[in-house]
């Protein structure tokens, strides 16, 4: 379970361009559920998502991962939690150009110090799972949108995380690919993973898969 208490995030604090991105957000995300953060652009979804995923620290407030308070942990520990607990799927996929699909998938696991052969085997398994094993050694810039997305999902799963975080995952996909994405999320959900998605796409938030929709506006949770 992930618990957020009175989370506030301010960018450029104390400067003329100070910007409050999240304001007093309190939220409990249950394990194994699919939660969607919904709201227009600039509502604070992405910021809240990055705070949940230990990518950014809140300006004030507390975050608990299970029983563990993680707000004040040093960067090293936060990174470790991020690597082991969360798998990220970004809006732009954020694959590294110039290297192959399999290398991109393996990337988050490199710092673990795992045997290269075993890691490669695992990455191949994931590419297989998403039916893109034919593209294993293809450089990612030559992949289609759907293929790139599946590589990004495989990368998010390489460390076998219990929580999947996806930021506007369907923003650059057509309807068919968006539905395909939701099917994959369904599969991951059935495996028992917690899924948190920030989206204002009806294909996502209106999906039967979603257990809970959290609506945000102007940095606040409105419902």
């Amino acid at each position, binding site marked *: 379970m992930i618990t957020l208490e009175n989370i506030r995030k301010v960018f450029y604090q104390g400067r003329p361009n100070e910007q409050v991105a999240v304001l007093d957000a309190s939220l409990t995300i249950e394990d194994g559920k699919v939660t969607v953060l919904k709201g227009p652009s600039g509502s604070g979804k*992405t*910021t809240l*998502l*990055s705070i949940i995923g230990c*990518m*950014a620290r809140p300006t004030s407030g507390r975050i608990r991962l299970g029983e563990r308070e993680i707000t004040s942990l040093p*960067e*090293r520990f936060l*990174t470790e939690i*991020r*690597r*082991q607990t969360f798998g*990220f799927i*970004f*809006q732009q996929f*954020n*694959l*590294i*150009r*110039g*290297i*192959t699909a399999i*290398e991109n998938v*393996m*990337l*988050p*696991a*490199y*710092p*673990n*110090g*795992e*045997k*290269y052969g075993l*890691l490669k085997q695992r990455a191949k398994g994931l590419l297989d799972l998403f039916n893109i094993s034919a593209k294993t050694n293809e450089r990612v810039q030559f992949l289609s949108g759907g293929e790139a997305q599946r590589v990004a999902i495989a*990368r998010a799963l390489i*460390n076998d995380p219990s929580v999947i975080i996806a*930021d506007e995952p369907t923003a650059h996909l057509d309807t068919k690919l968006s539905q395909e994405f939701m099917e994959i999320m369904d599969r991951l959900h059935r495996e028992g993973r917690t899924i948190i998605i920030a989206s204002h796409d009806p294909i996502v938030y209106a999906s039967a898969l979603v257990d809970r929709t959290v609506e945000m506006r102007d940095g606040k949770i409105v419902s």
Partner: protein
Amino acid sequence: MAWIDKQRNVIDFTLSSLLRRKGKNAALIIVYTAVVFVLASVMLFTHALKREADIILREAPEIVLQRMVAGRHDLMPVSYATVVSHITGVGEVRPRLWGYYYDPLFRANYTLLVPDDFRYGEGDIAIGEGVARAGVTSEGNIMPFFGSDGKLVSYRVKEILPSESELISSDLIMMGEADFRTLFSIPQDRVTDLAVTVANPQEVLTVAAKIRKELPDTRPIVREEIVRTYDAIFDWRSGIMLVIFSGALLAFVIFAWDKASGLSAEEKREIGILKATGWETSDVILMKFWEGMAISFTSFTSGLILAYIHVFVSSAPLFEPVMKGWAVLYPEFRVVPFINFYQIATLLFLTVVPYTTATVIPSWRAATVDPDAVMRT
């Protein structure tokens, strides 16, 4: 074990990262290798020559005594040998006959020497390989010389001295005493200088002082001084080489600094992705460290190997005119391979360390940004 596997994984990623910018990195490695090649060649060659000179001079007498007239080196009376031999501490005194000869036909300078045990007869000479090349002659041929009286004298070449017989033998001509005296009209009671051996190395300076006292018109040259002079000459020559190449060096430093220290927007984005997917700042720095090491170590090793081949296998054709020989004849010889590990370490420190540092520092700055930056772009 996990630590080793982590290094291997990061190195693997680093190498495929480098391969993405093949052209740019290959150009960098080529220029870097060229710089290390020049520096290492100068260094290896200077050291090898110094060592060569040192080996040659180890066989030289402790003191060479010259006669000075009006501040110039003059022929020495043979009788001085007897005076010197009576000085306490002096071992053997050997009068020597040697000189230089300019061959107007081939425009070359030769060194002429009368060895103690010249095994050929009157009218015979033994010549160095350089002389044979310059005079286009070989064993059994006749070689003409103009005597000091202007008359043409011919000698028969009985032997070509082997090229391994050191750097100095290239322009050498050896002949009998009578021929030498005739050629240069040197009287029987005169020699070029005296070679004085001193049994106890501690007494060399004392003996030299005694000689100066007994024979005030002479100049004793102590072997250690010659060694020092050789060292200074080779250092000075290698300095000239470095000055010549300093422009290229400076250009490389600017180029490498620019390449290594500036991160492109693409590289910054990649660092953001790595951090967002669970890499620590230290992992990113580790990756950049290996990147710097891969480039600089590859260049360093290739530069050093090429320099080794250049100096010890192909006799340093690029530096030959500056580094070797005084005369018109450049000896064709191979210096004995000799590597000073202290110097290699210095070169490594001056090339690999600055480049690797220049690679790591900017990435450290980029790697300390919040990982959520990649979510916000």
